[in-house]
């Protein structure tokens, strides 16, 4: 039997130099440098577990280095639930190889066969009480060499840390209020900047009176380039005051028209589009169809609404060199776009990652980095920290794209599905920086010589797709056709938000299935089990059903719903039972989830991600909708864009099916789609009403009741 030639993991193939990942420091520490970054998901701890495990060192010896363009491996962007898959595999392989290299060196020094040596907390010992250590050998073993395929990682049974819940490394700082976030950056001579942004969508700055801003105590500079304008001051308070003064002195053009927020489907379907057939399946022969069911589902634009406004610090170290501190998801990608805007070679731009608040996709982190770079031009080398306002954070960053989804099913005489059709109308779900020949940073669109506004695209299906993510059914329907229509106009700025299109598609698929199943009088779990062929899928469905005692006896005012998906069709499996109470308003009482991420490196970390995803999804489905009139985004505060509160959060129970033998995948986006579908299905179970337009608010319930 021929087994395929061994290959390097994806991130290691791109960054093979071993020393770029691991160094043994003179103080007895191991420095681990992943290219992925902490965005509140606990990735840094999981990666430390993997490295410590493969090297056989205590986790306390591991020092995690934040990503920087100076020395970190380039792992692109921290997104798509790929960090464990990409960084984790690369580190496991690199550490396994490094362990072998050191064992070989130790064998030579100690005169003992390598296979007689053992490693314990970095100390290498063998028979006759001979010993050395990684650190003793570090001078003679160069890791400035490329990784080679074939290094063997430890057997599963020998892993001591990976697979066990570990305390997150970043949490102590956060409970004691230590300087940890980019917002807390302290640098000598630090200045504070604020940027002026229009209320109306894409309005141009036509006039600016600067005198009152200049009179604010602590004023340093006004910066203006076309429609980009901002102030720099000695303190945050003075910067805010100067910005308010600048705002009063600004005149704007009218701006662009926005669509009707109350008829998003009509807007989406009336735009010019690029249409793609995502997948087709044809059956040799099927039972004849006797009727066709057709439904339309929509989801609104959704805001990232991170709890902290985006922030960045920039300092020009000489006339053409700039240093940037950012909570961007991709330091190298941000550098590409800054290089395009500033017309500077890459090596003149240094970017370091610092933690921001929770990040759920392409939020304004990159935008504010360019803002800081532009404002810092006016300060003769002093660093400038720029922080967006809450209102700008809620209105000027990219949103998750609105979607209209039509689903049709041809049914045979016994009500079985013989053909399935799914069509999506949506703006693209990706306009991340650093990937094209034109920058996608907000200020780049505002300059006197502006860059054209990038119309968002969709990642290819091979990377999980965008608007079409999770649109191909996971069920064994005999025939289907899946189409995606990506808008070529973009009045509302959209880009990657957790799950991209998967949330909308899973909502549509699982809701429509529930309608068909209800009409058949079949149990939703039984139906799914009958149409799923993948045993891992069936296992999460059965586990969630069992844990929630599916299906509990009917109770007045209470409803139960089921939802299932495998994120990106290739990632984590997740099944959900939702229990809700509803009359005029819907209250989600309990979510019971079963999840399979393959090897769960930090099981408590996985549970934390699934709980968080489930609660955030509950917030999306019950409350969230970006609001706008025909000229401007109006949901610019927590009052106008409410999210779920402590008293509204459901009980969440998570079962992780541990599969140590299967390569791990990420957990951060697995829950959203199935949770939203399960809640919508529970609403039907409770009230007999199908709400097909999210969010499920009181108004939408009334509208759906009137429709049915």
């Amino acid at each position, binding site marked *: 039997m021929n087994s395929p030639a061994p290959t390097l993991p994806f991130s290691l193939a791109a960054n093979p130099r071993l020393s770029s990942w691991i160094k043994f420091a003179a103080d007895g520490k191991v420095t681990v440098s992943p290219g992925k970054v902490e*965005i*509140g*998901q*606990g990735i840094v701890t999981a990666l430390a577990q993997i490295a410590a495990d493969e090297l056989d060192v205590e986790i306390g010896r591991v020092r995690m280095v934040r990503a920087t363009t100076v020395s970190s491996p380039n792992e692109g962007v921290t997104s798509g639930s790929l960090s464990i898959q990409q960084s984790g595999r690369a580190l496991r392989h690199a550490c396994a190889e490094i362990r072998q290299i050191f064992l070989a060196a130790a064998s030579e020094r100690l005169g003992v066969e390598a296979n007689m040596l053992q490693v314990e907390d970095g100390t290498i010992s063998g028979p006759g009480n001979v010993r050395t250590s990684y650190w003793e050998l570090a001078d003679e073993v160069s890791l400035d060499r490329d990784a080679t395929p074939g290094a063997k990682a430890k057997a599963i049974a020998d892993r001591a840390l990976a697979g066990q819940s570990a*305390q*997150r490394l*970043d*949490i*102590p700082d*956060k*409970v*004691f*209020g*230590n*300087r*940890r*976030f980019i*917002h*807390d950056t*302290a640098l000598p001579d630090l200045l504070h900047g604020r940027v002026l942004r229009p209320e109306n969508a894409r309005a141009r700055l036509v006039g600016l009176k600067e005198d009152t801003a200049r009179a604010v105590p602590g004023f340093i500079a006004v910066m203006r380039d076309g429609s980009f304008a901002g102030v720099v001051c000695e*303190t*945050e*308070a003075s910067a805010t005051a100067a910005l308010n003064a600048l705002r009063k002195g600004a005149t704007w053009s009218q701006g662009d028209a926005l669509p009707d927020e109350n008829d998003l489907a009509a807007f989406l379907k009336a735009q010019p589009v690029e249409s793609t057939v995502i997948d087709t399946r044809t059956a040799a022969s099927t039972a004849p169809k006797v009727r066709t069911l057709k439904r339309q589902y929509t989801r609104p634009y959704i805001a990232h*609404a*991170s*709890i*902290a*406004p985006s922030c960045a610090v920039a300092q020009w170290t000489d006339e053409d060199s700039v240093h940037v501190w950012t909570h961007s998801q991709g330091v190298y990608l941000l550098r590409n776009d800054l290089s395009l805007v500033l017309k500077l070679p890459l090596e003149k731009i240094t970017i370091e990652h610092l*933690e*921001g*608040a*929770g*990040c*759920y996709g392409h939020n304004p982190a990159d935008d504010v980095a360019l803002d800081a770079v532009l404002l810092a031009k006016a300060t003769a080398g002093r660093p400038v920290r720029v*922080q967006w*306002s*809450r209102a700008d954070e809620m209105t000027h960053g990219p949103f998750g794209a609105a979607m209209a989804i039509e689903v049709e099913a041809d049914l045979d005489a016994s009500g079985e599905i013989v053909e399935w059709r799914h069509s999506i109308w949506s703006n693209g779900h990706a306009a991340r920086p650093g990937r094209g020949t034109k920058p996608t940073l907000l200020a780049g669109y505002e300059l006197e010589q502006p860059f054209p506004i990038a119309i968002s695209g969709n990642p290819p299906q091979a990377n999980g797709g965008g608007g079409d993510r999770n649109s191909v059914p996971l069920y064994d329907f005999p025939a289907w056709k899946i189409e995606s229509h990506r808008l070529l106009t973009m009045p509302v700025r959209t880009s990657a938000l957790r799950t991209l299109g998967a949330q909308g598609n899973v909502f549509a698929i699982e809701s429509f299935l529930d309608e068909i199943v209800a009409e058949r009088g079949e149990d939703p779990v039984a139906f799914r089990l009958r149409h799923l062929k993948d045993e891992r899928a069936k296992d999460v469905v059965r586990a969630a059903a069992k844990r929630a005692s599916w299906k509990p006896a009917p109770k007045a005012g209470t409803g139960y719903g089921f939802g299932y998906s495998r994120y990106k069709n290739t990632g984590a499996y997740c099944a959900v039972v939702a229990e809700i109470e509803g009359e005029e308003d819907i209250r989600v009482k309990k979510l019971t989830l079963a999840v399979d991420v393959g090897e769960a490196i930090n099981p*408590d970390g996985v549970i*934390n*991600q699934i*709980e*968080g*995803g*489930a*609660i*955030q999804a509950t*917030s999306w489905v019950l409350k969230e909708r970006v609001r706008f009139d025909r000229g401007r985004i109006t949901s610019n*505060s*927590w*009052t106008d864009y409410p*999210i*779920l*509160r*402590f*008293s509204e*959060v459901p*009980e*969440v129970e998570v079962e992780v099916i541990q599969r140590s033998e299967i390569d791990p995948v990420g957990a951060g986006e697995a829950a959203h789609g199935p949770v939203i579908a399960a809640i919508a299905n529970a609403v039907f179970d409770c009230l007999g009403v199908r709400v097909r337009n999210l969010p499920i608010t009181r108004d939408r319930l009334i509208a759906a009741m009137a429709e049915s």
Partner: protein
Amino acid sequence: MPNIRFRLNGTPTEVDADPDELLLDVLRGPLGLTGPHFGCGAGECGACRVIVGDHAVTACDAPLWSVADKDVTTLEGLGSPERPHPLQRAFIAEQAMQCGYCVAGVLMSAAALLRQNPRPTEGQVREALDRNLCRCGSQNRMVRAVLRAANEAATT
């Protein structure tokens, strides 16, 4: 301009600033603290909460004059790695956060609650934290951590 005096984390403090300046700007600016966080500037999210007297208040919309002669406690004053507050221990034990940005304010709301009601029910904890927003979805862990801290304080 008269100086404003108050006790900050137990230490008498005097600030030479405009009395209308926002408490959060003063704490994070000249006083150099990083416990209270800016989130919205409108008292809506609670990331900036500090305890004034016995109550958790939002520092982002409280003028400096409003704390004159009062006791102000920030996260830094709650406890330290050497002498952690039961809530800090409990938040670590429960791994009660994802990004942790909101936690500074959540801990202060919880600390104010426990001062007034050392054995709250789960419902009372949720009510006390209802004006703190968490976007990552860690609310249930935080509630468990607060109940754990209350329990620990009662049994030690």
